[in-house]
């Protein structure tokens, strides 16, 4: 069956349909990871986006229950060069095609993803639709132009009710802006007793839970669309150790007076080199963000820039000068991607422990 990918700027790509059988519209973005397609599709940071895989072959090792990053993904569609006809891995439990059908996510294959990626790099990310062949292309484009992508996307993907991720050691509150399971996995690995709360939980509500530390999760969209979280962070950072990832990093920056902007085509993939300023050490990181912190708006009396992207010098890490709070733009929880930076979770544990020690002393 044929399927078309149409873009805001009038481009039409013809390809073959796979995955779910439905129309879809979203922001077309590309990710450069060679593997990790299942994690990417289920990553809530891709909510309302159509995901282009630059790797030419997708689906070759199938999907499995272990690698979900969320159970109800909000990714709008996938675009591939080629989808493996046969998936083979000892971990395989399902094929990529079948998985997308179950999740209700349509896909298109057999299009020139290299040309598409180049276009996105030159013109920036844009709206696009996956549609069935139609006679009236003009109507399809009108519909695409008329579609407004939901800007309350954090509300859409965040949990509606708090839920626990039990452990027996430190008490952590994880504010869910679209959290990946891998963050919970990293916390579980360190035996944390975690409570996941909705994005609009207030500082008072969090403090009432008496946690030892607070984590701000990753998430989709523009950090300025969640002013309630910015207010919460301004209060919480004064009281508790804080660690933020991705959207949490941007919200922390906004809460401390810095500004953010929409990047042309963002950082999506897991080969992004990041320099740790203090030592010059480079780590390769997993990233997925379309917004970034403006470097010249960072108040250096309040914050230290701890990490920077090597290729385009984006601010990738911040730390507060007076409070025990630090955030990174990349994903130390990986999934998919390198685990180079997962010891940041250990740093957070250390931060919590020395604060506790100080209180008991």
């Amino acid at each position: 069956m044929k399927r078309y990918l149409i873009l805001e700027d009038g481009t039409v790509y013809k390809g073959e349909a796979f995955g779910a059988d439905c129309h879809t519209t979203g922001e077309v973005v590309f990710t450069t990871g060679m593997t990790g397609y299942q994690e990417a599709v289920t990553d809530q940071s891709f909510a309302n986006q159509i995901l282009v895989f630059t790797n030419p072959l997708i689906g070759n090792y199938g999907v499995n229950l272990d690698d979900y990053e969320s159970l109800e993904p909000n990714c709008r569609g996938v675009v591939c060069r080629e989808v493996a006809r046969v998936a083979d891995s000892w971990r395989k439990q399902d094929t990529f095609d079948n998985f997308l059908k179950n999740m209700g996510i349509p896909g298109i294959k057999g299009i020139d993803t290299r040309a598409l990626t180049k276009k996105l790099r030159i013109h920036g990310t844009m709206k696009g639709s996956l549609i069935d062949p139609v006679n009236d292309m003009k109507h399809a484009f009108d519909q695409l132009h008329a579609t407004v992508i939901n800007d309350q996307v954090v509300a859409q993907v965040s949990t509606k009710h708090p839920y626990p991720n039990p452990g027996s050691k430190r008490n952590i509150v994880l504010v869910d802006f679209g959290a990946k399971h891998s963050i919970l996995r990293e916390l579980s690995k360190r035996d944390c007793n975690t409570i996941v709360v909705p994005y609009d939980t207030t500082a008072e509500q969090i403090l009432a839970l008496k946690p030892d530390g607070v984590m701000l999760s990753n998430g989709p969209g523009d950090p300025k669309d969640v002013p309630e979280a910015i207010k919460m962070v301004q209060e919480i950072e004064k009281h508790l150790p804080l660690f933020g990832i991705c959207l949490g990093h941007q919200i922390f920056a906004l809460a401390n007076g810095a500004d953010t902007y929409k990047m042309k085509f963002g950082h999506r993939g897991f080969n992004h080199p990041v320099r740790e300023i203090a030592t010059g050490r480079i780590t390769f990181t997993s990233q997925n963000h379309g917004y970034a912190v403006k470097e010249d708006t960072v108040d250096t009396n309040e914050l230290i820039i701890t990490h920077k992207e090597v290729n385009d010098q984006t601010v990738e890490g911040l730390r507060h000068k007076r409070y025990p709070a630090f955030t990174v733009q990349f994903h130390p929880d990986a999934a998919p991607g390198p685990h180079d930076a997962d010891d940041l979770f250990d740093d957070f544990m250390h931060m919590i422990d020395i604060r506790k020690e100080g209180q008991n002393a």
Partner: protein
Amino acid sequence: MAKEIYDAMAMKRALTRMTYEIIEKNKGIDGIVLVGIKTRGIYLAQRIASRLKQLEGANIPVGELDISLYRDDLTHEADNTKEPVVKKSNLGFNITDKHVILVDDVLFTGRTIRAALDALMDQGRPKTINLAVLVDRGHRELPIRADFVGKNIPTSLDEEIAVYVDEVDHKDGIELRDIPKK
């Protein structure tokens, strides 16, 4: 048998973390000076200073204290009849009204630190003195505690901690090993 507890990378990370903690505790780097104790503390202090320079772009002065011990750097024989004495101090700057960060590799009985505190007090009146150590191995004999600790390593008195720094030992790392029986 020697057991490597920290490798070079972990040591690097611990120093970076301590640097952040120093900034957080002092709410910036105004008035901070570093003073390293004897061989390895000096190099650790210099590494912290280089991190502070990278992060904040300021040159933090690093002074040196040489404290001779009743033991050499790596072996310890409990001999409570002698006290460590300050052999020579070369600070090269005035510490009055400064926030002094005293840096050493291992915190053990606390007697070296006490001697260092005396030496510092002779040189002026610092606003505060904080202690940063890469390893706290316990067994304090004096009421002294570190403000910034790279790693707490609980030890027995039959063991010793060896900190290696590249500048002297041509490698970085921390080892825990048994003291050979005589």
